[in-house]
């Protein structure tokens, strides 16, 4: 938030801000409290508003019960009085309008183990030339019944992933210890030694390839480095988005003027420009562009010709793509070759698609139905047969190198020919 007064410039205000941030880290985490509140609200609600509760909930409950009873009686009746041949019996659930869940598991990849850790679940991967790191949870080495935070490093272009000790400084979601210490969800490396691990309330810096980490103030919901500098996006409790920049590896960040709100964000950088997509539940998204390495941002409004955008992928030069969701729930990719000034809609894509990467000349689209590739600005798509199941991540490192990770975090796919052919490594 940019305030238009001198309180922020007041040294005491600055010291107070730093003190509050430090002490906020001592606050209880609130995981158990949330469950306690939900239980308490149920009890208090039932006791405090019997009439209103009955008016709002009683009739539907009675109706639901009656309908359920009728359904049960009808079912019993049909079964007892008119037994149907087996091929006529169809379970009720098969007729209900509930969506079919997408498969979340991926086919096992046969081969020797590629890591010393067991039951690995990858949260994020980052590739830098021949090196790569993966942030994950895995079976604890000293207690197979528990799950621990794992950092894996590959030095052979993603074929093998030996573990690197994390010093226990941070945790990731899904580990047995919970997130009692600062929790990180993402990982970005700048080069072979310099990298960041971050989450909404925590940010760590390493300058020795992940061997040791230093905690920096605050957290990040998105962070991307390119060339010599890094852009960091964070969000206040009220949903206000903050952007700050720093030279790679510098502990001091410069807050840049930025004033908008979002429920979630996507940050993507190309050599032509950086793009920040702010997404809001139920409302239009806003795409911002920076051509000075994040120091200033220009709003481009909602980039999708219809509907709202769900993902952004910056290309090199003036190209940028967005994944759009139309009001009728159909999805398509819109591309721009003029730094986002104008977007052209492509062909419809699967409604399960929610991830986007690549230059408009070669776009990768991922989600619940594996991976698709377009070399015609989203107007024609080729399904990649080697990559199946639901994906949780897709990203490009260069015009030829890209990575995809299954949603269950067990399999990594890599390509070195612009997405034509992919190799899978199973860590699960």
């Amino acid at each position, binding site marked *: 938030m940019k305030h238009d007064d001198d309180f922020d410039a007041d040294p005491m205000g600055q*010291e107070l*801000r730093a003190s509050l941030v430090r002490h906020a880290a001592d606050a209880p985490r609130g995981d158990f409290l949330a469950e306690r509140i939900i239980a308490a609200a149920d009890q208090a609600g039932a006791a405090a508003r019997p009439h209103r509760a009955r008016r709002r909930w009683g009739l539907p409950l009675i109706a*639901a019960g009656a309908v359920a009873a009728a359904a049960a009686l*009808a079912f019993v009746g049909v079964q007892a009085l008119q037994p149907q041949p087996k091929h006529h019996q169809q379970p*009720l659930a098969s007729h209900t309008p509930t969506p079919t869940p997408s498969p979340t598991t991926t086919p096992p990849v046969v081969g020797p183990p590629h890591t010393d850790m067991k039951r690995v679940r990858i949260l994020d991967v980052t590739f830098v030339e021949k090196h790569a790191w993966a942030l994950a949870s895995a079976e604890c080495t000293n207690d197979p019944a528990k799950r621990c935070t794992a950092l894996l490093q590959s030095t052979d272009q993603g074929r093998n992933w030996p573990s690197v000790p994390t010093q226990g400084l941070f945790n990731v979601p899904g580990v047995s210890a919970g997130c009692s210490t600062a929790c990180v969800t993402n990982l970005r490396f700048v080069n072979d030694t310099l990298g960041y691990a971050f989450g909404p309330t925590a940010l760590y810096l390493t300058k020795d390839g992940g061997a040791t980490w230093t905690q920096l103030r605050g957290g990040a919901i998105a962070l991307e480095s390119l060339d010599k500098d890094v852009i960091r996006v964070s969000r206040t409790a009220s*949903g206000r988005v903050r952007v700050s920049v720093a030279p790679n590896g510098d502990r001091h960040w410069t807050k840049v003027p930025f004033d908008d709100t979002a429920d979630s964000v996507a940050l993507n950088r190309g050599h032509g420009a950086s793009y920040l997509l702010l997404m809001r539940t139920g409302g239009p998204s806003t795409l911002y562009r920076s051509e000075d390495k994040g120091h200033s941002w220009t709003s481009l409004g909602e980039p999708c010709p219809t509907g709202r955008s769900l993902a952004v992928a910056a290309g090199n030069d003036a190209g940028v793509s967005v994944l759009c969701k139309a009001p009728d729930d159909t999805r398509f990719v819109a591309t721009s070759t003029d730094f986002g000034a104008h977007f052209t809609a492509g062909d419809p894509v699967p409604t399960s698609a929610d991830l986007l990467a690549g230059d408009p000349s070669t776009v990768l689209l991922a989600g619940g139905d594996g991976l698709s590739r377009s070399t015609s600005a989203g107007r024609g798509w080729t399904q990649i047969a080697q990559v199946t199941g639901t994906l949780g991540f897709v990203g490009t490192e260069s015009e030829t190198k890209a990575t995809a990770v299954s949603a269950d975090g067990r399999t990594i796919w890599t390509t070195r020919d612009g997405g034509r052919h992919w190799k899978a490594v199973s860590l699960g």
Partner: protein
Amino acid sequence: MTTRGSVQRIAGWCCLLLVEVLVRHEVGFAGFVREHTPVLLRTAYLMTGNAQAAEELVQDTFVRLYPKWDKVESAEVPIAYVRRAMTNGYINFQRRAARREYAYEDVPERLDERDAFGQLADRDQIWAGLRALPERQRAALVLRFFEDLSDEESAAALDCRVGTVRSLISRGLSTLREQMGTPR
């Protein structure tokens, strides 16, 4: 397809639809609580300076709002609505607590082991100084310098005018400055 079969299917749909509607309301509240409790708890902790009091404040706020959750959900910014309720709850609680101090002569309970102000006073004068401020000034400073709220948003949370918020912040900073012996 038999008539019984159709009735059976329709009944099933209706049943599932109604259950889904009922569950969705509950999930809305529960989802909000799970998502926002950690951040509200941090703000409450900075206001109260005490882990237990912070948890009580957040819990009381949600339980108080639960019967009118539809109103919260229909607010333009639901989290702002909840924050306002929590801030008011904090100020009112402090006032009640202050009155209670005069009403009883009991020996005060031992400080909460996680009494952050007590633990950290020696190494953070600002943090200790914050504790000595009147509750409205303290809340205004936390909303401004931690939540990063604008004057208008702070005014809404504190249920007062923008000018009052600026006055609270100014006086709060001034008091902290005096305690630290720092010239303006």
